């Protein structure tokens, strides 16, 4: 973990457009250290785009994403992201984790740290298997092991269990909890209400590219403030 914290993260008046389509507009919130923030909303709400903007994979059309530290090298190194469909490099499970460590500059510690990370996600027995031959759930755990290994201060997860069965989903959620318990701040998108209830201590509810609610998970699920959020929780279709 970096000695100088990069949190809180301040998102101010964030907007993102592509061509004539406005994907996100007027998004403002803060992410505090140690939180488990779930970005919730129906498909097409702009959740994944918001995550990519926070992580720096996309450039905002307007507004800003500000970390507590201005040093780009520092705040880039202190965050990691797990994608809905993680890219497995064409090499072994262990080498995938070691690659992440090596590009992070932890060359000498890579073998030991990779072993520890794989043990943590329960994949040490598959360390030598080609990563691309692993199941979807195992690949997602390899992606989490990569994130675990580099010890980010903030971990972004973009619908990490979207295409997984319940058993694999449980394993992923347990790993996320373990990563959070170690002190990593979690920011995760999902459209799965049950998952949001299990993980979130705070919810950002997006609809049509706008931030409709930014509140604690308890309040969001018990007393949603907007009709859109209330309808979403009731399981009604939003479009």
């Amino acid at each position, binding site marked *: 973990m970096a000695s100088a914290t990069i949190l809180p993260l301040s998102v101010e008046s964030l907007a993102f457009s592509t061509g004539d389509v406005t994907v996100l507009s007027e998004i403002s919130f803060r992410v505090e250290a140690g939180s488990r923030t779930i970005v919730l909303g129906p498909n097409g709400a702009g959740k994944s785009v918001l995550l990519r903007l926070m992580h720096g*994979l996309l450039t905002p059309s307007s507004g800003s994403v500000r970390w507590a530290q201005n040093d780009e090298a520092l705040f880039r190194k202190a965050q990691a992201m797990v994608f809905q469909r993680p890219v497995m490099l064409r090499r072994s499970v262990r080498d995938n984790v070691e690659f992440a460590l090596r590009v*992070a500059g932890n060359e000498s510690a890579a073998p030991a740290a990779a072993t520890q990370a794989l043990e943590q996600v329960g994949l040490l027995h598959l360390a030598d298997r080609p990563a691309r031959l692993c199941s979807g759930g195992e690949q997602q755990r390899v992606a989490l092991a990569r994130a675990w290994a580099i010890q980010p201060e903030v971990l972004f997860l973009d619908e990490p269990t979207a295409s997984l069965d319940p058993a694999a989903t449980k394993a992923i959620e347990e790993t996320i909890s373990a990563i959070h318990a170690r002190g990593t701040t979690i920011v995760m998108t999902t459209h799965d209400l049950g998952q949001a209830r299990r993980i979130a201590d705070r919810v950002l509810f997006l609809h049509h590219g706008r931030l409709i609610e930014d509140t604690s998970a308890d309040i969001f699920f018990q007393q949603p403030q907007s009709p859109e959020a209330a309808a979403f929780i009731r399981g009604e279709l939003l479009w």
Partner: protein
Amino acid sequence: MNELGDSFRIAWQLVASFDANLVAITALSLRVSGVAVLAASFLALPFGAWLALARFPGRQGVIAVLNGMMGLPPVVVGLLIYLLLSRAGPLGALGLLFTPAAMVIAQALLIFPIIAALARQVIEDAWGEYREQLVSLNANRSQCMRALLWDTRFTLSTSVLAGFGRAIAEVGAVMIVGGNIDGVTRVMTTAIALETSKGDLPLALALGVVLIVMVVLINLAAQSIKTTSMRKHG
């Protein structure tokens, strides 16, 4: 028809008896084209990877020129290398003209655009898939290039094979810079041209058959290794 049949029969006898002349010419062909492919790949694969990832004004123009150079006429390349290596040329002092080294240089230059252009396309396609993951991991340009080159190695082997096919089959460039000197710079294609012009069709045909069989076998072996490796590594 009979003449063709006789030619095939004699050709087969030459191949079956490991005719010394045939073996020497075949070995030199393999050596020259093999070294040319290695040298060209050493430069063209990283260049293709760099071009796939780089963004600069005029990039599309560079890609268009590179793609266009895939069809470089061998005789023009041969002439260019000839002018460079000839006694009066800027590299004349090296004394490489009419040596296998000159043939390697000519073939490497000829196939560099093929390997680089195909590698650029393969790696650019892979970059679309890998970009977010590698950027997220904070991999720098060089680390991205190396990761992509390694991960696309099975597909890139096809690009290298395309280069080898072009090198071993071309005649114009090696004829000009090698001079088709018996026992020194005579390779299969130049020998075929010479024997045909002399009317010795059996030897020309034998060389032609060996050339085709060799290229097919090398491609089969490479394809087999590629398929097995992909099955093993995913």
